[in-house]
């Protein structure tokens, strides 16, 4: 298997215009969750989300355009012959909202292919790639797919780009499902009451060692293993026994040829819903047994960024590996049974060089990635 290096990472979240700023503020235990001003939330279960400050359409059709501009500001140039894997669940859903309200819009902007073309055009890519839609595991699966392409020698360089917006469409839907927390979400807390939505984007460049050498890039880290599996039990709820997540994590460990004891930290999906967090604790207990691995969730700080969550959490995962610090789980106070001592509201240092990051979503999807420490982080 050809080693899979990650040589560039960028992220824009409610906490920061850059990955560095997001990481710095996350480490300080800050949260970007605040009252939503983009639309009226008065009839919904929550008033809160993590929105990117100052993100506005201007003359554009969709907020995705300025979000991509911010994401790629200062991003290094890329070879023209690379694979592009986009990951978004609802893409330009803001365009559909406006269309249904009777505004004149350019409908192309709501299709993922338009975003694909925009990213490909930004870097002058020869191929415009594909968008992967697998709910909240979309970008995790995109990274897994990109890693498999590199590992098998099918590609030398892969750009994974993920993004999703806070929209009334999604906000109202999770409210209708009674899944939004009235207060900022509290992942793995016994008193958690649901998720808080967020928006964000991330870009990751995966390269073979040969491509990295030719481009003069040092690795931020490595993707060591990956796995994707379906619960095959329910459309919106996770399998209570964590069967799909267990399978995905075990696939990732097998791919990386690692035993559970090699994992030093976990970046969990950790949405703050009752059932997701319980499912994850069950799955991790099954896989890791007596090996109590520190777990954190970024979603109490940046909200649940849907299809972008996996990519953002990979970018943060490399920061965590470089600093040997598990960031705080913002909002966490009283541990859910099984989270005692392994989930913390403060940053904690850890020894080791392998981090597991996982995401799960509607449709029963689960995805797991094992990340390894790099040289340049």
């Amino acid at each position, binding site marked *: 298997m050809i080693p899979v290096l990650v040589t560039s990472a960028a992220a824009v979240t409610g906490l920061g215009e850059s990955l560095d700023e997001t990481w710095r503020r996350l480490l300080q235990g800050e949260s970007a969750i605040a009252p939503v001003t983009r639309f009226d939330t008065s009839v919904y279960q929550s008033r809160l989300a993590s929105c990117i400050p100052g993100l506005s359409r201007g003359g554009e059709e969709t907020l995705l355009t300025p979000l991509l501009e911010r994401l790629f500001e200062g991003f290094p140039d890329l070879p023209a012959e690379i694979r592009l894997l986009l990951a978004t669940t609802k893409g330009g859903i803001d365009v559909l909202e406006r269309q249904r309200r009777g505004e004149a819009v350019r409908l192309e902007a709501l299709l993922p292919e338009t975003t694909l073309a925009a990213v490909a055009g930004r870097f002058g890519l020869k191929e415009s790639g*594909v968008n992967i839609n697998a709910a909240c595991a979309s970008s995790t699966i995109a990274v897994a797919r990109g890693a498999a392409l590199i590992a098998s020698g099918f590609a030398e360089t892969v750009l994974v780009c993920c993004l999703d917006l806070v929209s009334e469409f999604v906000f109202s839907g999770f409210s209708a499902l009674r899944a939004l927390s009235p207060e900022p979400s509290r992942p793995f807390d016994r008193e958690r009451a649901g998720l808080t939505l967020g928006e964000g984007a991330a870009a990751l460049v995966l390269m073979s060692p040969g491509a990295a050498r030719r481009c003069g890039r040092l690795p931020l880290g490595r993707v060591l293993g990956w796995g994707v599996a379906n619960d095959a039990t329910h*459309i919106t709820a996770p399998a209570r026994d964590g069967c799909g997540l267990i399978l995905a994590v075990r696939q990732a460990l097998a791919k990386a040829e690692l035993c559970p004891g090699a994992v030093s930290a976990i970046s969990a999906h950790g949405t703050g819903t009752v059932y997701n967090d319980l499912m994850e604790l069950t799955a991790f207990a099954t896989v890791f047994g007596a090996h109590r691995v520190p777990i954190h969730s970024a979603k109490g700080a940046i909200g649940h960024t849907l299809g972008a969550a996996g990519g953002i959490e990979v970018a943060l995962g490399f920061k965590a590996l470089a600093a040997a610090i598990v960031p705080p789980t913002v909002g966490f106070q009283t541990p859910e049974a099984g989270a005692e001592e392994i989930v913390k509201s403060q940053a904690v240092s850890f020894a080791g060089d392998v981090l597991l990051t996982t995401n799960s979503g*509607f449709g*029963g*999807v689960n995805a797991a990635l094992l990340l390894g420490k790099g040289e340049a982080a």
Partner: protein
Amino acid sequence: MKASISGIGWITAAGFGQGRGTGDFAMTDGALPEIARKDFFADPFPRFGRLDEFSRLGLSAIALALGDAGLDQWEEKRNFGLIAASAYGCLTTDIAYFDTVLADGGALASPNLFAYTLANCVLGEAAIRFGLTGPGFVVNETAASRLTSLVMALESLFWGECDVLVAGVCDLPFPLETTGIAPVAPGALFLVLTKDSSPDEKRSSPLLGLDGRGDLEIDGVPVRDWTEVARASLAPAASGGKMSAVNS
């Protein structure tokens, strides 16, 4: 990278069907046939009534394909993957859902419709119905052929990610009036693919693979769109393929 096509099922404006030797295939503009549960599932399957139109279309075509392959019955969950190409995904459901939001300022937004506003939920329904635990996702692409999902399916089989991969395309008609978007023909077509390891003389199923330039071919015949994929897959096998036409 090669895979045997062990099952095929489709629903298009021209009708629905499964299996080889069923005559010509067409994926053209026009109204899709009504998708009634009894035409695709022998049991009462009460969940079917809750599905959105996109999921009914995709799930029914997947059922036809798995039925054709003899893989629609199961007792233990199986490591089968699911990949679907779609230009518009669940846009029809998105509109239906958001109209429930606008109807009463959001207070009466439909949770059931919202649950189907993710395009991959059709694959989730198939996973539940048929006990499929492999990787699954929906692909949107700009390529005119819309066949990238088939290449990705071949890759997944080659990498050993799953034992069987159900790959295809699923689209409802574009639900809005527009002049700016090139239309794609509505319908769903799914193939059941298994990694090919049998010698040619023992193989009776069509073989999907890549030619020397990386383009898709079936039994050596280049395929450039889903209609060509279906026609090449449906061509009668020299050694006699399965025959199980339904209303096509």
